[in-house]
């Protein structure tokens, strides 16, 4: 074992630190090849195949590929193609990628762990034969390139007698030249990929980065500043750094949320946006105040159809040179322009190919589904095949002379309008990890048949004799909670909440755990569930089904009949659920006067206590907020929705919810006590008073005063705001209140002050998630913390480190938000499918009155839609007069207020294939020249079988 040292110097606050780290060089690192004849202490099965078939016309011999860093970084889509196998990823390359792009790093490591790809990581930096020392005057990049060439050279000689070649793939001209001069096999990735017999892979090539700007094309954009200049500017305060958020309504407008400041800066127009794509970290310069502007509330959709032909030469056409300086002074917001890009946050985008008139052309425009992303120019030879398909495209670059960013085709998802394809789009657009679980992940599942051992029994409390049952929505297969209640001899009750013991099966740090942590949550789409953990766990071993022995984590209380808690106990247990009930079944049992079996008694006891608990909670100021949840009835043949209903809430729903809240709070208290610094909790900040303005205004229009000074006051004043003739009024107020709320988030207790732990909505000083570990990763952490607290399981370093817990929380918060959005998008998708064949009149209520539109809530479907008052081209805008003060729209003698009942006609606007819209037209009140006549329901009267395929999960989550 040889030893050597590397020297790195770092600066920090004027202090110059010379950091010296040891670096040991070894001679025992295997080459990873089955073909190796040098017998280099490898494993039985090495990842690289003995004699892989060559598919390249450049060289017909068996070979391994060694890509350099930039090839991996930019051509990851090519490497992911199934035809690319037997690749050596050097440690030098892997380290650089780790630092430069987390997503690419993840994709590379996934390929390395896949047994199909035959990727191998060679630790060249630790090998005495391949380590190179940085030379004086050599840049770190040059050194790394040299290290890569050295490793390629070593492999060439090492495998000389093994009959396998190695070849370096690089796009760097210098690197290629040096490699060739050393007699190494080296090609550019372009030459290599083009030499393959598989021709479709060419489409996946990313564009070369530095295309020279030919003078024939005029420069459209200002140059981005260099990093040094940016940093200087930021320090001097001349520039600001932030994340750019393109407006959903108008792709030419954006807000930049300034880093470390609670400030938004507005950016308007293609020139000022200067090639920033949504989510990029950009640097902006504030414009002089005279040039400040404000968002045009006009909806500006990209106009298609006019100019496919001369897209090529299209510059910045006039529609985009914006309406400027007509902005009244009082509306002006701080406005800036993008001068540089700190970090691109490009991802892969779903969308469709814009049909081109010249079929034989290979350059095409791609229209992303996400409206905030610009069109992308790609090259493909398969435009015919991709015509009406949903495809995925990645951006490679955005040169100054191009109206659109340049990208490449990644893969095809399927036909537009096909439900599976659309679901896939939805998942991709919301960044929901949904690929099948990898081999590595599945390898950590328990081996079937799974049995309970003596050892297991010894470590758990046996609760199999108790009358435990679960109550869930119909069709639920991932049952993560069950309950029981029994009378004690002293007149008190013993209540138990039993939660699936997922952390027993998912051990910290392994691939299964990492995958679950990354997914963060199970995502429920209307007709599909994307599990956080593999099916074997979610629907079988962890699911607390009736009639089988299951492991649980139990919270047991002794309660008085007044629901006062005498004692709380936590234990790992083994249970045998007596019944898996639906809410309706449980309700029937409770209500059935003839039933008096133990299970029913148990349910009644629970119900009784839950009511008291709920009252206590509401008295305490907890909010009961409304949101509408929809349930689709789906045709069993076509999987198309037949009918929609809002979900019905029964007493039993609330019963289960009460005990879940109680368990969560109990666990939160316990783990915080044991781990004051690193408990994973959930908080719901109290909203700033200004958030309530729309609510107060709306309620005032009906003569109600809403007290927002405290949660309790709010709850009370909401209770009082009832209009007898409009029973839906109160619900609407509650819906509006929900919109005023802040997002509830996970956090690590050590990162905040205890006063900030508050959960506003539930009016509890502390809260966590414990009760759904099958579908939420937060709960798994809570389980682990609790298990350590009671000595039932071991801790591990990451669990005890608050920064690690917090970064986990950040991911969970992100995943939860995306899961919610995806869920909503899925409901929309199904709504569209439902109305595809229908035009229907429905009763609705005005939820908001806006300058150019009415926001309508349709209680029957729990839908919200917009009636545009100045509809496409029709010059009807003059018909309505908007009164900002009163918040009304008046046309002739009809005045529309908030909460007014209306009748609207629902249909689907199919003018844009990617964005089918639910279109609402006003039927009543009748406004001549605007409203439409009522129609008979033309929907085909299909047999409305409630197939109950809904996978939408039960309770709402606070």
């Amino acid at each position: 074992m040889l030893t050597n040292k590397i020297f790195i110097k770092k600066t920090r606050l004027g202090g110059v630190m010379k950091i010296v780290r040891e670096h040991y060089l070894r001679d025992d690192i295997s080459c990873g090849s089955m073909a190796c004849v040098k017998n280099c202490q490898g494993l039985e099965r090495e990842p690289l195949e003995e004699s892989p078939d060559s598919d390249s016309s450049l060289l017909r011999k068996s070979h391994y590929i060694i890509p350099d860093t930039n090839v991996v970084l930019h051509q990851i889509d090519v490497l992911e193609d199934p035809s690319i196998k037997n690749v050596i990823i050097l440690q030098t390359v892997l380290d650089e990628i780790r630092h430069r792009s987390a997503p690419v790093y993840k994709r590379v490591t996934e390929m390395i762990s896949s047994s199909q790809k035959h990727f191998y990581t060679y630790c060249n930096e630790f090998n005495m034969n391949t380590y190179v020392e940085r030379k004086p005057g050599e840049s770190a990049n040059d050194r790394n390139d040299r290290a890569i060439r050295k490793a390629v050279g070593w492999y060439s000689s090492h495998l000389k007698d093994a009959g396998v070649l190695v070849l370096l793939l690089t796009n760097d001209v210098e690197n290629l030249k040096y490699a060739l001069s050393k007699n190494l096999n080296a090609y550019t990735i372009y030459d290599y990929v083009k030499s393959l017999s598989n021709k479709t892979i060419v489409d996946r090539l990313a564009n070369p980065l530095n295309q020279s700007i030919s003078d024939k094309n005029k420069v459209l954009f200002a140059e981005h500043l260099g990093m040094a200049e940016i940093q200087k500017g930021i320090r001097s305060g001349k520039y600001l750094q932030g994340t750019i958020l393109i407006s959903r309504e108008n792709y030419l407008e954006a807000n930049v949320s300034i880093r470390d400041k609670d400030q938004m800066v507005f950016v308007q127009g293609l020139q000022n946006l200067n090639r920033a794509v949504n989510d990029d970290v950009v640097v902006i310069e504030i414009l002089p105040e005279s040039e400040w502007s404000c968002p045009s509330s006009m909806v500006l959709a990209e106009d298609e159809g006019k100019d496919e032909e001369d897209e090529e030469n299209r510059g910045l056409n006039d529609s985009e040179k914006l309406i400027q300086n007509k902005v009244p002074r009082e509306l002006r917001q701080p406005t800036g322009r993008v001068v540089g890009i700190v970090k691109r946050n490009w991802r892969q985008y779903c969308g469709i190919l814009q049909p081109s008139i010249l079929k034989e052309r290979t350059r095409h425009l791609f229209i992303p589904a996400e409206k905030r992303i610009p069109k992308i120019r790609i090259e493909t030879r398969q435009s015919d095949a991709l015509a009406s398909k949903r495809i995925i495209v990645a951006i490679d670059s955005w040169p100054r002379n191009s109206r659109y960013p340049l990208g490449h085709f990644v893969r095809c998802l399927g036909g537009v309008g096909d439900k599976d394809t659309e679901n896939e789009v939805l998942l991709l657009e919301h960044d929901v990890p949904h690929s099948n679980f990898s081999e590595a992940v599945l390898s950590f599942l328990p081996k079937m048949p799974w049995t309970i051992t003596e050892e297991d029994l010894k470590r758990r409390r046996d609760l199999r004799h108790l009358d435990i049952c679960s109550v869930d929505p119909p069709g639920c297969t991932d049952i993560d909670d069950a309950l029981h209640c029994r009378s004690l001899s002293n007149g008190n009750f013993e209540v138990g909440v039993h939660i699936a013991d997922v952390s027993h099966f998912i051990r910290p740090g392994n691939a299964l755990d990492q995958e679950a942590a990354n997914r963060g949550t199970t995502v429920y789409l209307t007709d599909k569930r994307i599990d956080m953990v593999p099916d074997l766990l979610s629907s079988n071993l962890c699911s607390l089904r009736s009639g089988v022995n299951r492991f649980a984590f139990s919270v047991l209380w002794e309660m008085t009949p007044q629901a006062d808690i005498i004692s709380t106990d936590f234990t790992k247990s083994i249970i045998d659920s007596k019944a898996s009930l639906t809410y309706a079944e449980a309700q029937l049992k409770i209500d059935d006067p003839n039933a008096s079996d133990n299970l029913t008694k148990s349910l009644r006891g629970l119900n009784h206590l839950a009511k008291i608990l709920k009252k206590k909670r509401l008295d305490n100021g907890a909010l009961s907020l409304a949101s509408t949840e929809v349930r689709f009835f789906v045709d069993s043949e076509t999987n198309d929705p037949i009918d929609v209903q809002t979900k019905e809430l029964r007493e039993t729903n609330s019963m289960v919810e009460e005990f879940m809240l109680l368990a969560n709070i109990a666990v939160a208290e316990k783990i915080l006590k044991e781990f004051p610094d690193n408990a994973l909790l959930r908080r719901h900040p109290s909203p700033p008073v200004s958030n309530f303005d729309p609510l107060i205004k709306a309620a005032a229009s009906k003569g109600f005063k809403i007290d927002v000074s405290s949660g309790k006051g709010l709850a009370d004043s909401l209770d009082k705001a009832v209009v007898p003739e409009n029973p839906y009024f109160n619900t609407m107020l509650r819906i509006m209140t929900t919109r005023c709320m802040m997002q509830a988030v996970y956090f690590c207790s050590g990162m905040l002050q205890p006063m900030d732990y508050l959960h506003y909505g539930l009016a509890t000083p502390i809260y966590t998630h414990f009760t759904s570990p099958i579908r939420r990763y937060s709960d798994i952490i809570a389980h682990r913390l609790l298990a350590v607290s009671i000595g039932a399981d071991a801790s591990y370093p990451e669990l005890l480190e608050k920064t690690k817990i917090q970064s986990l929380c950040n991911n969970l918060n992100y995943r939860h938000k995306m899961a919610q959005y995806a869920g909503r998008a899925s409901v929309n998708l199904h709504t569209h499918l439902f109305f595809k064949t229908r035009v229907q009149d429905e009763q609705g209520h005005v939820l908001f009155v806006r300058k150019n539109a009415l926001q309508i809530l349709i209680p029957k479907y729990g839908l919200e839609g917009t009636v545009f008052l100045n509809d496409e081209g029709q010059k009807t805008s003059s018909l309505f007069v908007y009164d900002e003060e009163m918040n009304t729209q008046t046309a002739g003698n009809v005045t529309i207020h908030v909460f007014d009942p209306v009748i609207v006609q629902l249909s689907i606007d199919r003018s844009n294939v990617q964005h089918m819209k639910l279109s609402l037209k006003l039927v009543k009140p009748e406004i001549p020249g605007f409203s439409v006549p009522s129609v008979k329901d033309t929907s085909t009267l299909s047999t409305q079988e409630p197939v109950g395929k809904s996978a939408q999960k039960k309770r709402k989550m606070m």
Partner: protein
Amino acid sequence: MADVDLSEPEKVYILHSVQENLREDGRGCEDFRHMEVETGLISNTNGSARVRLASTDVLVGIKVQLTPVDPKKPNVGRIEFFLDCSANATPAFEGRGGEGLASEITAMLTRSYSCFSAIDYTSLCLLPGQQCWLLYIDILLLECGGNLFDAVSIAVKAALFNLRIPNVTMTKDEGGIELDVSDDPFDFKRLDVSGAPVIVTVNKIGHQHVVDASEKEEACSLAKVMLGITEKGTVTAMKKEGSGSLDSESISEMIESAKNVGIELNKCLLNILKEEEAKIEEPVGFLR
């Protein structure tokens, strides 16, 4: 300083031998004992050196730091000496036991280096009036075998020779001037140490003047003069120590003797340092 118990006859013997230009170890009056110099052995410092002069052992490490300039001297960099007497040398240094000696030595060093030509102080200034380098010259005294001042000063000069100051790029903008320290370990500048002084201590033993006195000889000496001497023979500092008194004539003789020794010493040191630098092996340090 370490106690040396010397009997009266021993003292007399030493005194008389020196009188005859015969020192106890056979050296002449202007001869140094065996000395070993090694640089660069503490890798996390910007410059380091170890000097072993007979059994006197000194280790010096220099760390650099960016700092605002002294407003009174806006065009120059700064150096700061710190000396720690390790208890490894003698139990008497335990705790704060070595602090008296330490401040004596650092004071002498500071005085020797306060001469403007000692090192190129202006090259240590990055931005006149604003930023300069501060060199922390930290000295660790590991074993005391006589003639500490000289040994320390030699080690300091060697460490300064070894010092590699990272290059700094300056970029101007309206918010002021930004300094960026190079992260390339090969991108550094060296300090010109040709003007740096070494300390030469001349002990008066009887009527003779001897340099590089051993501990025993030091015990026999009643007065000594310490001088900072550069390669050119310039005297940058002077200090008399000891209970005895000296007449002006012997002082000028002692200065003369110190100059001769100092010039030679500086030359030898520089040669050794250059030779050593040409070697490729990593430093052996205490493993020798």
